[in-house]
């Protein structure tokens, strides 16, 4: 499978080409280059995945990992070495498909969405860079390669979030995203260092005997790595960057902050799953609890946000938390014995990538139409944007877990895994799932139903109360709707993929079967959520809604402000780090460290001034000193 190298090289070349020569290219050419590259990458990815899975299982009944490339990149001492290479395994093949698909959709979509934007070529260059990095991450042959691409992903995300570099919010958001994830990466790095030191390798599959001796520190290492993953995957409290990251162009949000980069953390845990399950099951449970809390937190916050992309962002956090929970609740490597969560998580990752990508692209389409992110500028759009409306609805149904859409299947597996772990966990996650349905449909209604903001404005304009004619929402061009339709189609059918056949915790085939009880319960809960949303938001904001808002004023306000996590972040950065640590250190440096040197210089000057009077100009004084010197030296010689 040597051709897989092209999967990495093509986007890189595209990035270099667009990055270096982009300035002199017309927009169309740049867009075409980027998109065509992605088409090729996608084709190669699919081909690789198909070839890989078609090759069948080996004697032990698993899909053998293959490593078409692996070379020493940087030696770290005599034994350790950072390798670079390509590793094809079931999950990486799956990720190749996810990434290339969503990325291709985003590339196509952006042709329309970003049309005429300043820096169009740069945009495509960054997209290529991101795709390269993300693909490199998933095919990493070892943890350090993963870290290398992990960082690259972080940077490309930074560049893309800050794409509108003249917008202060975008600048702040990009900075925040980078720094928060970087902070998490620090732990990742330390984890890697511990891991590398004790296992003597950075490979994912160290020697068993080494592992036995390193066993004691492995949980620490893995926990630290998880913190790194939590940063990228926006687990509480490191999630704060993700909502802000919506300042980037919407297709970027779709690609990075919904489908691919944010699941890197999940992928990391999945990658290291054999080690987690074998040596650090307790860390997995920590992951589960963190995930569960994050899921709930994000769901609550999502219920009250007004910016549609923010809602989607929190929903993403919540859904990724689902995946984390699914991984965390695993208690063994056997899918039949408590290892179901692994498969469920990967499955959800797959389906979520599709429908969340769809949701973001849909949202992009809407924003493209109304030029605003705020729900107050929307409402009643279903008439104007039918394709967007339908595809958005499909995605909402999928995320809410309504069969036969893909989300139902994957979420169901997660819930089953949770119930297998413990009933409270199952119940808890079911409730979160219901909330998912609620806030997604709240969003849906607010956008597509209710009073049309455009019509209100038009009325105002006709009455002369408003001096410019409002912009009429319109359906997006085909370049944007076609990706929507494709993703919607995938969303519809993806649930029926026999996912367990390809991916499972121990690599052996696992047949998905739906737990009737859990499925029923979850459907009922989802329906209840949808119903509540329908009541509250279908016809604009009803009285009940107002009442509820009135009663729950304080919690809603808190939730709207995301429980003041950002204020805490600001406090930590601005007040503690900046004012509390950095500024005093800078002062200390200038005034104490440097000051003491200046003091030294001053002392010399002072001492000079002090001995100056000795040179009084009087010969007699000189002679007194002369003789005194003689006597003093003699005294020293005698008495020493």
């Amino acid at each position: 499978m040597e051709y897989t190298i092209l999967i990495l090289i093509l986007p890189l070349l595209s990035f270099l080409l667009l990055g270096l020569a982009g300035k002199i290219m017309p927009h169309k050419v740049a867009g075409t280059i980027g998109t065509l590259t992605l088409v090729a990458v996608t084709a190669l990815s699919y081909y690789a995945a198909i070839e890989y899975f078609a090759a069948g299982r080996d004697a032990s009944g698993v899909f053998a990992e293959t490593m078409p490339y692996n070379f020493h990149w940087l030696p770290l001492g005599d034994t350790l070495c950072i390798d670079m290479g390509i590793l094809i395994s079931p999950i990486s093949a799956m990720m190749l498909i996810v990434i290339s698909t969503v990325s291709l959709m985003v590339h196509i979509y952006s042709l329309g969405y970003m049309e005429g934007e300043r820096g169009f070529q740069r945009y495509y260059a960054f997209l290529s860079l991101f795709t390269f990095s993300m693909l490199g991450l998933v095919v990493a042959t070892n943890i350090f390669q993963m870290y290398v691409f992990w960082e690259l992903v972080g940077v490309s995300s930074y560049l893309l979030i800050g794409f509108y570099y003249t917008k202060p919010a975008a600048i702040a958001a990009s900075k925040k995203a980078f720094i928060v994830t970087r902070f998490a990466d620090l732990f990742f790095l330390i984890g890697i260092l511990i891991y590398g030191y004790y296992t003597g390798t950075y490979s994912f599959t160290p020697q068993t005997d080494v592992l036995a001796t390193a066993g004691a520190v492995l949980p620490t290492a893995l926990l630290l790595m998880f913190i790194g993953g939590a940063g990228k995957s926006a687990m509480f409290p490191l999630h704060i960057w993700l909502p802000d990251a919506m300042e980037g162009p919407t297709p970027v949000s779709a690609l990075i902050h919904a489908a691919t980069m944010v699941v890197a953390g999940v992928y990391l845990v999945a990658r290291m799953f054999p080690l987690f399950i074998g040596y650090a099951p307790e860390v997995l449970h920590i992951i589960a609890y963190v995930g569960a809390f994050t899921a709930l937190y994000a769901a609550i916050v999502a219920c009250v946000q007004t910016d549609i992309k923010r809602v989607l962002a929190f929903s993403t956090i919540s859904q990724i938390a689902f995946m984390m929970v699914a991984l965390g609740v695993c208690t063994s490597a056997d899918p039949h014995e408590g290892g179901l969560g692994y498969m469920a998580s990967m499955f959800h990752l797959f389906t979520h990538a599709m429908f969340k990508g769809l949701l973001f692209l849909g949202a992009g389409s809407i924003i493209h139409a109304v030029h605003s992110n705020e729900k107050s500028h929307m409402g009643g759009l279903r008439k104007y944007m039918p394709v967007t409306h339908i595809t958005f609805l499909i995605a909402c149904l999928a995320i809410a877990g309504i069969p036969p859409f893909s989300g139902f299947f994957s979420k169901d597996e997660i819930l089953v895994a949770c119930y297998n772990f413990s009933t409270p966990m199952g119940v808890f996650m079911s409730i979160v799932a219901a909330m998912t349905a609620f806030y997604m449909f709240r969003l849906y209604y607010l956008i597509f139903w209710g009073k049309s903001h455009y019509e209100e404005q038009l009325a105002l304009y006709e009455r002369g109360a408003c001096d410019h004619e409002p912009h009429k929402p319109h359906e997006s061009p085909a370049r944007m709707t076609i990706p929507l339709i494709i993703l919607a189609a995938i969303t519809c059918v993806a649930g029926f993929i026999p996912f367990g056949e390809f991916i499972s915790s121990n690599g052996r085939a696992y047949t998905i079967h739906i737990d009737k009880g859990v499925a029923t319960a979850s459907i009922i809960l989802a329906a209840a959520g949808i119903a509540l949303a329908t009541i509250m938001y279908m016809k604009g904001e009803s009285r009940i809604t107002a009442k509820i808002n009135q009663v729950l004023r304080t919690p809603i306000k808190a939730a709207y402000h995301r429980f003041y996590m950002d204020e805490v972040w600001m406090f930590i950065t601005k007040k503690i780090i900046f004012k509390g640590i950095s500024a005093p250190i800078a002062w200390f440096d200038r005034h104490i460290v440097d000051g003491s040197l200046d003091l030294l210089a001053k002392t010399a000057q002072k001492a000079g001034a002090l001995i100056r009077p000795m040179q009084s100009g009087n010969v007699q004084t000189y002679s007194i000193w002369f003789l005194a010197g003689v006597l003093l030296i003699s005294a020293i010689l005698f008495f020493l």
Partner: protein
Amino acid sequence: MNIPAEYLLILSAVLFFIGVFGFFTRRNLVSLLISTEMMLNAVDINFAVFNAYCHPGHLEGYIFSLFGIGVAAAETAVAIAIIINVYRNFHSIHIKRLKNLKY
């Protein structure tokens, strides 16, 4: 002669340091010069005494004294010339006046 050598040496030491004292405390350049002469004179006594009492075999101390007198004369001549020059410039040979150069 049975005067112990130490007596002579102490006498010369006293003279020497009286000269030193004068050099330290006088205010007039000529007085300073006088004090120096006294010091040099004391040194000459030392040489002569050492030669006579301790090492009479050769005339080293003796000759040293002799040359010491000559050198003192030469020094005095130069010093007096310079003092005269100072007087021409400053119209005083008071040491207090010589304070242009200091610190």
